[in-house]
């Protein structure tokens, strides 16, 4: 028996920690476990993938999980990111868990295999419990409950162990335990089909790799203009033009040049590229910028 879980989140959401909490909780249950993350240069909001493998035998696998039994989608906007490839390789009758109040997002996806869908609004639960949209414990709790091999007490112990490891305060850890307990008790285990899937292997011939002059180079002077970083947001800054005094402080602070000024000196936010860092919200002297939860991908 081996169960492969793949977490997809965004930098800062806690995907890596989620994979570790799940790993530790299964380890406490006496199972063989392997967990690992893969991510690029540290960047809040960028796609992060993490894996947990759980087995009652020695795990002779490593690295990327190509064919997960359970996919935990921590941010539904990732479903629309071609780079994240969230649903790739899902096993037949595999389970996709979606952090979302509804499951409408997934219907956009054209996935051949028949999968099962489970959803829960982890972010909302985290906001209520922690006041922050960090869902490492919540995601781990969801996965732990769905695979049905983890006792609630083991999950709690794993949350404590992993959050202590990253230096969180006792109070924050306690809140995370409560959050984990809430998510755990709100879901039911699912039966995971873990039949071996067969993948066809085609090796690219070297001639094809070297096609052309074999001097391939990327010389474009930056491609950030075509990457819509607006989908990284969890919160959206919104300007209240009545309160705005056109002081331009937000304009000066925006690290991404995602703010421009209107004729009257008041800011216009470029939502295609605003990453939701919320520096403008924090710096605005008259508190004319408020926050809205970002729920829909675009």
């Amino acid at each position: 028996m081996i169960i492969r879980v793949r977490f997809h989140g965004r930098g800062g959401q806690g995907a890596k920690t989620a994979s570790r909490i799940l790993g530790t909780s299964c380890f406490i249950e006496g199972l063989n476990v392997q967990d690992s993350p893969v991510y690029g240069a540290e960047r809040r909001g960028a796609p992060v993938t993490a894996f947990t493998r759980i087995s009652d035998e020695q795990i002779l696998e490593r690295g990327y999980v190509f064919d997960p039994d359970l996919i935990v989608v921590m941010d539904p906007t990732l479903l629309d990111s071609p780079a994240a490839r969230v649903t790739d390789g899902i096993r037949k009758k595999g389970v996709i868990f979606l952090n979302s109040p509804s499951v409408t997002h997934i219907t956009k996806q054209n996935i051949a295999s028949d999968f099962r869908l489970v959803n829960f609004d982890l972010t909302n639960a985290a906001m209520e419990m922690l006041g922050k949209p960090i869902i490492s414990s919540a995601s781990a709790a969801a996965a732990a409950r769905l695979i049905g091999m983890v006792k609630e007490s083991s999950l709690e112990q794993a949350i404590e162990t992993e959050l202590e490891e990253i230096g969180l305060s006792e109070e924050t850890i306690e809140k995370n335990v409560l959050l984990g307990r809430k998510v755990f008790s709100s879901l039911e285990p699912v039966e995971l089909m873990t039949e071996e899937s067969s993948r066809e292997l085609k090796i690219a011939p070297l001639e094809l790799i070297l096609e052309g002059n074999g001097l391939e180079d990327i010389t474009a002077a930056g491609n950030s203009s075509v990457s819509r970083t607006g989908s990284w947001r969890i919160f959206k800054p919104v300007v209240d033009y009545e309160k705005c005094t056109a002081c331009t402080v937000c304009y000066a602070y925006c690290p991404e040049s995602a703010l421009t000024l209107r004729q009257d000196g008041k800011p216009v936010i470029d939502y295609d590229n605003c990453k939701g860092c919320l520096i403008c919200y924090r710096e605005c002297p008259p508190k004319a910028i408020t926050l809205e939860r970002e729920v829909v991908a675009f």
Partner: protein
Amino acid sequence: MTSTRSMLMTGNLAAAWGARLGRADYIPAYPITPQTEIIETIAKWVRTGEIDAKLVQMESEHSMLTAAGAASLAGARVFTATSSQGLLYALEMLYNIAGWRAPMVLVNVARALAAPITLEPDHNDILAARDSGFLQFHAETCQEVLDLILLAYRVAEDSSVLLPAIVNLDGFYLSFTREKVDLPSEEDAAAFLPDYKPVNPFSASNPVSKGATVLNGALYSYFKYHMHASSLRARDVFEKASAEFERMFGRSYSPVETFMADDAEIVLVISNSFSTIGKQAVKRLRNRGIQAGLIKLRMLRPFPSSLVARYLSGRRGVAVFDQNISLGFGGIIYSEVLTSLYHRRNRPQLILPVIGGLGGKQITIEEMERIFEATKNELGSESPEPLFLMRSEELERTMNLVKTAKEVHS
């Protein structure tokens, strides 16, 4: 062929002439023995106006190579030189420059690596750059230093290669050794080596991304495979260029030079300045009726595997002289020669590993002869004993020095 003049010059002066006749535009520099004379010479020429180039002294070899690679991409023909610790300090930039596909030429004046500290040569410095993507050409004579620099620019800048190149010459044995060098005229050198035409050059008003971040294994592999293929292509490009060089200047350069090797039973594989002594040993052995021969590796990257296999297949015995040591294994070139031959049905009975000349340890003609003798003696052996060259008198003197040092200390 127009006017050629001959001069006595050191290997370092020949290297400076390589930069001069190659019409280098930009020379970032940082001093280190035994390379410094190259830069001093070029600096003098810049001051007197004999060459039209910009020479800049940097604060380290790392900065020097960074500037060199960037200037090459901007469209300048770049020359620079270093040695030993300097090369290692710049090592991470060598990988970058190769990845940028910047066809600059770097001269390394070989000097053994610390510790212990010395100024004399072996090839652990240059071979540390073996896997960087830089093409490598190794010189035996001062003439070769000059000629290989011109050839290196031709190959590096070829539109099917676009990789940087290193020309290696041994410290002291070439760098400070004067011998006759035929100097091509500026016109002939320019006819052989036309102006550098950069691909996608960048400037302040035309930014271009080079060596972009990939953060993706498949993409990274894709570029590395392309660099590998480009490096392999450099061998053909070098052979074509050297054929043209021979027509123009009368000097012939194959990636592998053979010396009395046609009917040789025992062949020595060697590179760089000690090849000369090896040749003399072969001549003496021939005079005694021993069928000895030698092949000299002139091109180390790309490694000329098929030529090595062609010249060594069917021999009874081969000795590989490594003037370097991969501690815990042995000679570096040894394994490359072995790899080139393993699948040949008529591979030699024996390939003897020889380590010699570390830190510039002198090599006598007799030591070179002993290599052939040892190879013959080991024929048929299933586990030949590697030969570590050190003469008894050298050991005796060494022990005395060690003893003295200990006495002074206590």
